[in-house]
């Protein structure tokens, strides 16, 4: 994992902790719904918080293809380079 990706992972962890109000340890291979126990509303709130953290727009259908934490990092990187 590159330094950029590691930094992004740490930022994403902070955002998720603020949404869930609990400590989380994210690993790239984790499944966001199953391993982290997020329901559909938690995923949408997480998405909203990520939008504000990175000042980007993440339409909900972009999140539909995100399964693992690594998928999320890839999606965020792509959206940030577009912005």
């Amino acid at each position: 994992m590159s330094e950029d990706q590691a930094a992004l992972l740490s930022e994403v962890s902070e955002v998720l902790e603020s949404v869930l109000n609990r400590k989380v340890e994210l690993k790239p291979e984790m499944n966001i719904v199953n391993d982290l126990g997020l329901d559909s509303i938690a995923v949408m709130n997480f998405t909203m918080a990520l939008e504000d953290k990175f000042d980007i727009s993440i339409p909900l259908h972009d999140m539909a293809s995100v399964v693992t934490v690594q998928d999320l990092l890839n999606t965020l990187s792509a959206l940030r380079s577009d912005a």
Partner: protein
Amino acid sequence: MSILSKFSPLAERYGRMRDSGADPFSIKFDDVLSSVEAVVNGRKTVLFGTNNYLGLTFDPHSVERSVEAIRMHGTGTTGSRIANGSYKGHEELEAALADFYGRKHCMVFSTGYQANLAMISTLVGQNDHLFLDADSHASIYDASRLGHAPVVRFRHNNPDDLAKRLNRLKDQPGDKLIVVEGIYSMLGDTAPLKEFVDVKREFGAYLLVDEAHSMGVLGEKGRGLAEREGVEDDVDFVVGTFSKSLASVGGYCVSSLDGFEILRIAARPYMFTASLPPAIVASTTAALETLRAEPQRREKLTANAERFYTGLRSAGFQVGPEANPIVAVILDKVDVAVAFWKRLVDEGMYLNLALPPATPSHQAFLRSSVSAAHTFEHIDFAVELMTRVGREFGLLPDNVTPFPARPVSAERLSARAATRPALRPAADVGAGMA
């Protein structure tokens, strides 16, 4: 393993609730006696969970017109408007609604759910953007999944947050549609519509307001929040339902946008479902006439909502932010809410139990809806009962404002109610409010 195995976590949660002795999802009314009274488990029960805002479900004007329509035009249309044709009644109802709102166009749908599904999924396409309030009703979320537009959520009732999200996409081509609700169905709070209109204008977006719970309730003429806030010209689409103030089932959308009629052959939830039957069309048209002719129902509803909301708040309950006919008591623990709900039903008061994920912030609500057909005696009975149970459950301080001033018991209410006919005369609702 079966195709249903994936529901086992849900089944387990449901099973735990049923084991506690309460099953809010399968409550059964042995008989429905009036707009505000039913028999539950053999006991006469006051209804505080019906959305029957104007108390019109037994209104003789609607009942007679509905019966007449069945005799004249049959029990069902047996098909869709597009494939099998429209009845005169459909067109008359659409014309009446367009006239009520002062708009050029109206489309009627078979349910309120389908009205949102049709409008929202069709108005925006894959090159447009859809902006939803985070606390939107399930029908709005489902519409967003049926359509092809990218969906962006904004924080509940927060026009600045919406502006921020619109700003991020301001250089994107395509149209932008903002969807908000007049009164939100869980907490009874209203949207800050004037501020949303400012944002809509700034970004050149379209605005759709779902007035399901505010039609017949807010505004001098009962047209809803947009009327009350004086911004109807800036609301491009109003969606609503017949299953609340108009006491039947179905939904509608009104608009003055040129070209609106093309949606009849573009909106799939309009095209591929059976149209409303004559009985429903007739009773709804009659109920709209009553809504327009009897503004005193709205005044009585407002007075009842104020009395109920103030009574519960004074007792020390945590309630929603404003006094509207939807009054929610907010309880943090689901098991406490379930036990509280069961106790109220056992003592002759029915209301809704709203549980996550249907509620914001994972809270549980005891959700009531007040009706114009409630008497102050009904309201006082409910406040007194909820206060007594709340104290017993240790949820309230003891030294709060006593309410009501005089004792009202369920027995007394039942004895009185039992002497009344199930079909009340039309004047009954207005009787106590001169």
